[in-house]
């Protein structure tokens, strides 16, 4: 029981950044802007958060800086792909490199620690929160450990991430903004005919994407760790992209996909080199590759069909 709770706790921890990035991608891709720059935006956000927290001593300013930097990258992506009608994939690739290069260069110039930021004190980070009645419930069988070890004891950003799942669903499927956002991703010409600006709708979507990527970055550098280290996103942006496809561009499914991939990550950390019943020792690399393999299998159409938003990746130009 204890090991299971610990494993699930680790699952939640590793899925939070995936979930935030995945929801970020959801906003963008639902509006027809393919974004493979999630990784770069998260990395830029992580660096900005840690650098700001180290310089100002405030975790909240760190979070704001992360969001600002990430949104800036989103706007560059938007300018290239919406206003300039450039190739969205090329632009996303560019963002990934620019973020990685800038974070390392500026980090080295400011802190002179090989691209790292200084170790942060606990008040410069988002600490773990204890939910009410944790003490009282801790000894209750079954519910106690689940509540006090699994549900309680995460940082604020983790709770925000999970709250954002129903919020995103509501925004996308129950508001006018969400309707327009999905419409420009499916049929921009129809939205244009209705007299609504396609560009503005898409810009708002990529800004939402930037905000969430920034929060994801802050979670990594000032949430679960105490500072920025080089390339700390370690491909999470791409796993989030995989999760987004896995979830077929739906918010609640996105949460399950991220929890699944987070669970694979947790097993990888927890059972490295341990022989499991029946299968024996699973190579750690297989666990690492599994999210990608599963996504390819899904994309191939062997387990359901993943149909992306129809206008995804296509720049919109008005009729001549």
């Amino acid at each position, binding site marked *: 029981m204890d090991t299971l709770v610990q494993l699930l706790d680790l699952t939640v921890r590793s899925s939070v950044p995936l979930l935030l990035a995945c929801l970020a991608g959801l906003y963008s891709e639902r509006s027809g802007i393919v974004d*493979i720059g999630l990784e770069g935006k998260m990395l830029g956000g992580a660096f900005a958060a840690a650098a700001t927290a180290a310089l100002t001593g405030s975790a909240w300013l760190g979070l704001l800086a992360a969001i600002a930097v990430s949104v800036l990258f989103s706007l*560059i992506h938007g*300018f*290239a*792909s919406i206003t*300039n*009608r*450039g*190739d*969205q*994939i*090329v*632009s996303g*690739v*560019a*963002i*990934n*490199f*620019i*973020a*990685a*290069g*800038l974070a*390392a*260069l*500026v980090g*080295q*110039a400011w802190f002179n620690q090989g*691209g790292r930021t200084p170790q942060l004190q606990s008040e410069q980070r988002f600490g773990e929160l204890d939910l009410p009645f944790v003490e009282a419930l801790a000894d209750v069988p079954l519910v106690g450990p689940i509540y006090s070890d699994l549900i309680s004891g995460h940082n604020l950003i983790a709770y925000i991430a999970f709250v954002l799942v129903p919020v995103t669903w509501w925004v996308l499927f129950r508001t006018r903004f969400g309707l327009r956002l999905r419409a420009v991703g499916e049929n921009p010409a129809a939205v244009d005919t209705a007299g609504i600006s396609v560009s503005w709708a898409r810009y708002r979507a990529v800004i939402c994407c930037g905000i969430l990527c920034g929060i994801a970055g802050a979670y990594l550098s000032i949430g679960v760790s105490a500072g920025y280290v080089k390339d700390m996103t370690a*491909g999470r942006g*791409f796993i989030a*992209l*995989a999760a987004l*496809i896995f979830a077929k561009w739906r918010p609640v499914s996105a949460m399950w996909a991220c929890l699944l991939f987070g669970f694979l990550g947790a097993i990888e950390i927890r059972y490295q080199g341990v022989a499991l019943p029946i299968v024996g020792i699973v*190579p750690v*690399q*297989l666990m*690492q*590759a599994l999210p*990608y*393999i599963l*996504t*390819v299998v899904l*994309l*191939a*159409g062997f387990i359901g069909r993943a149909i*992306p938003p129809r206008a995804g990746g*296509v*720049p919109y*130009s*008005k009729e*001549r």
Partner: protein
Amino acid sequence: MNAPLPRWVDIGLIPLINVAVAFIVAGLVVMFVGESPVTAAYLMVKGAFGNGYNIGFTLFYATTFIFTGLAVAVAAHAGLFNIGGEGQAYIGGLGVGLVCLSLDSILPWWLTFPLAIAGAAVFGAAWAYIPALLQATRGSHVVITTIMFNFIASALMVYLLAGVLHKEGDPAPQTRDFAAGGQIPKLDWLFKPLGLDMGSSPLNITFLLALIAAFVVWVIIWRTRFGYEVRTLGISPRAAKYAGMREVRLTVLIMMISGGLAGMMALNPVMGDQARLQLDFVEGAGFVGIAVALMGRSHPAGIVPAAILFGALYQGGSELAFDMPTITRDMIVLIQGLVILFAGAMGSLFTPAVARVFAGVSGPSKSDRTRYGSPEEKA
């Protein structure tokens, strides 16, 4: 409607402006971190071309980037974005490694080398085959699948290099060193008559192979029926279909050529320099290929100079990091990103302005703007 731009402006001036803007932005970043961009540029050029040894390194890196640049370019002609050069090169290295490990003490290098070329190409092509087939037959987007295959390749190679291929007792996950039959000659003799002493720089005969590959790619794309069909497919899939071209076959073949070219990149570091298969030997070269292809406008005549420029950036960047410790090698990653942004995603940013200058009118008409912004115009 205005007259179209002169050809030299379209294929010469505008790419140059784009790349220049990328470098200017990089210069601003250098200023931002408190160093002089002029000094940095000087140190970089000196580090890349200052003496024979440096030139040897520049061309060594360029060799790698010619292969990965060509790989991205051939796929781009078919309208496919092969972002998986990194993984294909990694697996290509497995092909090279297996040939060398099994034959290096039996055969001389001039017999192992052709086999290693075949090994690299076949393994790289095989790694591109599944994404290509899925794209052609099941509509799974090749960008996403090749990204996924990069990660799968990386996991697979770690598994192999720490497992069956691992040299007993070596702390690093790598194979044993290749014997003489698995090492190829350096190229310093070729540059000796020019008065260049390349010393111990790793430039090797793969460089010549890269130039041959560039020529062969030109022939395939512009001088064969297959190339014509590929370009038709890239510009207008519907026209290709209407003309009876076989889309599935074309897609799979061109992606395999692309993967094969990416795989051949592995010959350069694995056989030409390290003489063993080691972890992460690709070092992002697959992604540099994207910048090289965009800068070279997917034409071998543009890719070779673009690859040499990036080779110079890599070599010059290392020397720069040595002389100017505030500017690490990550500068190259930034420049690479900026080149991809300005030469790729924003490739048409300055076209209206240049067109205005050439047409001598006050502003482009609306029809012009849509014309220059249409995706077919960018390659």
